[in-house]
């Protein structure tokens, strides 16, 4: 029972984590990405289409990555080059992309909402025979797909890259002081665009994980608000990949838990609202802690 729960928690965490890492990097570069949802949706659809066409999950993933990246670039250009408000652009992108996806499905495939072609190649789970039998660990790591591994590998990799590579340094500088970055001869807007492209690519992968990693079909509701959950996760994480991962895990774990807890203590509607309340509670706690630290002061 606990094994199944842990396994499900990891599966549910993967798309949130992928999108949240992207959103985190984007935010460090200076853009709060509200459009992750649309990039997920685009990635999910393209993944199913390419997978059904070619029978290759690898190509499908690549296509989802590119789709998310292109959507990210488009969104970024409006924000950086036309100085538009990132929040409204992100919301608009989500609305317009949802409409476009439906419009596309109707006019190309003559279907509404769901696209369920034959011959979708799924992402294969990676079994680790040595760990399969291990009690808790086996359930967590065995039988997960490549995108889940990628998502978790990205956590330390992102933390490392932010600290130790020139791209990380430039990204942090861009988010903190755009004029400075321009003055030293770099192109802050391009750096910012690159971070949105990265976020879009990861959100595209998150979509692919949902459509060809979990179910093998596309539905217009498949992103299920996970882009917004990812937003909460990286806000929670502030600028730390590890804390962001913790936030994503909180939501993924909660999703896995709530489907097991339903009908036991509280009504399903309220149970499902709980993670949002937890986010507020955690932010309040962090705010209080900051305030206390400020009150008690530091030695300088």
């Amino acid at each position, binding site marked *: 029972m606990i094994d199944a729960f842990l396994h499900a928690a990891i599966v*549910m965490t993967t798309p949130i984590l992928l999108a949240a890492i992207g959103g985190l990097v984007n935010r460090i570069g200076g853009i709060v990405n509200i459009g992750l949802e649309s990039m997920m949706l685009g990635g999910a659809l393209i993944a199913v289409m390419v997978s059904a066409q070619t029978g290759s999950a690898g190509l499908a993933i690549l296509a989802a990555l590119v789709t998310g990246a292109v959507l990210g670039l488009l969104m970024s250009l409006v924000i950086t080059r036309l100085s538009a408000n990132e929040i409204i652009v992100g919301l608009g992108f989500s609305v317009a992309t949802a409409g476009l996806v439906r419009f596309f*499905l109707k006019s190309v495939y003559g279907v509404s*909402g769901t696209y*369920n072609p034959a011959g979708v190649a799924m992402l294969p789970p990676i079994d680790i025979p040595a760990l399969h039998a291990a009690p808790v660990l086996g359930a967590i790591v065995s039988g997960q797909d490549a995108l889940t591994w990628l998502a978790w590998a990205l956590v330390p990799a992102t933390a490392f890259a932010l600290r130790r590579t020139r791209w990380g340094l430039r990204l942090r500088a861009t988010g903190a002081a755009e004029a400075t970055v321009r003055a030293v001869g770099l192109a802050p807007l391009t750096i910012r665009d690159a971070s949105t492209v990265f976020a879009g690519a990861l959100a595209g992968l998150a979509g692919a994980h949902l459509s060809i990693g979990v179910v093998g079909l596309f*539905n*217009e*509701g498949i992103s299920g608000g996970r882009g917004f959950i990812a937003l909460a996760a990286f806000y929670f994480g502030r600028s730390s990949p590890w804390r962001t991962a913790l936030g994503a895990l909180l939501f993924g774990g909660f999703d*896995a838990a709530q*489907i097991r807890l339903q009908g036991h203590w509280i009504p399903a509607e309220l149970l*499902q609202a709980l993670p949002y309340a937890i986010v507020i509670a955690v932010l309040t706690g962090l705010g209080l802690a900051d305030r206390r630290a400020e009150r008690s002061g530091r030695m300088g």
Partner: protein
Amino acid sequence: AEKPVALIIAQGGLGDQSYNDLAYSGFKKALAQDKLEGKAVESKDVVAQAADILRRASDAGFGLVVDLEYSHGDPLAAVAKDYPDTDYVILNQVKPGANVASILFQEQEGSYLAGALATLVAKDASIKGMSGKPVIGVIGGTKSVGIDKFIVGYIEGARAVDPNVEVKVAYSNNFGDPALGLQMAKAMFDGGANVVYQVAGGTGLGVIQAAKDAGKFAIGVDTDQDGVAPGAVLTSMIKRTDVAVETVMKDYAGHAFPGGKTVTLGLAQNGVGLSPMSHTKDKIPAATLAKVDDLKTKILSGEIKVWNAVDQGYPPFFK
């Protein structure tokens, strides 16, 4: 020729893999068969635009308006009074008016049979994948009384064949999230459920996928979903919304619109019922099928009256 027909799509829109899609397919079929003109109207804001859309269609010379949106009941009754020459159809509720036809479904009756079959199959360890224990599940797309009408009937049917049955109930809060549906069903299968009934539109496609992965059974809903994953879908609780729309349009084309009448579509009218089970029939012992048939006969004869959560409220065995 007759004046054209308008079909007003309910919340959730086309693509819900369920109610709207089914009605729409009946609508298209009727247009072709009866040589009618017609348009379907979708709106993100369908709740608020009730009277506006109904009046616009009536003003624009549509002769029949079929409204799928539940919240349009009262506005439809009001608009219908102003347009005596236009016919209206409302579903799932009864509204007055000589030019208004009401269509009611008895989804609880078909769900009752689904629950009974699910329990019998679950208890039969000779069927591949079944544990032999009376544990089954159901996943609703949202917590609402319209969905609970299915769920209550399902539970009642399960209890009819085994009072000790355990029925796991959960709601996905989303009709379009198959990944969530898959995880929810998986949790139920992991928890010992043998058969899971889905009443959750696109989310339910994930439930079927999970049954296939787990070597258990799902039960489809609305359309015959047995073919979605042949062998993994035990049966489907078919609700003939398409037939209802098709029939009423045919009557309209033939100048026999059932204005002022209430059309009830239950087991007796073949408006709801189980699918032919073309992929699974062979795996199920004949006695089990006979038992389900027997229950069906009893419902038809009135010997069994299945609980209708919409009319009767919630029964004591369901919270």
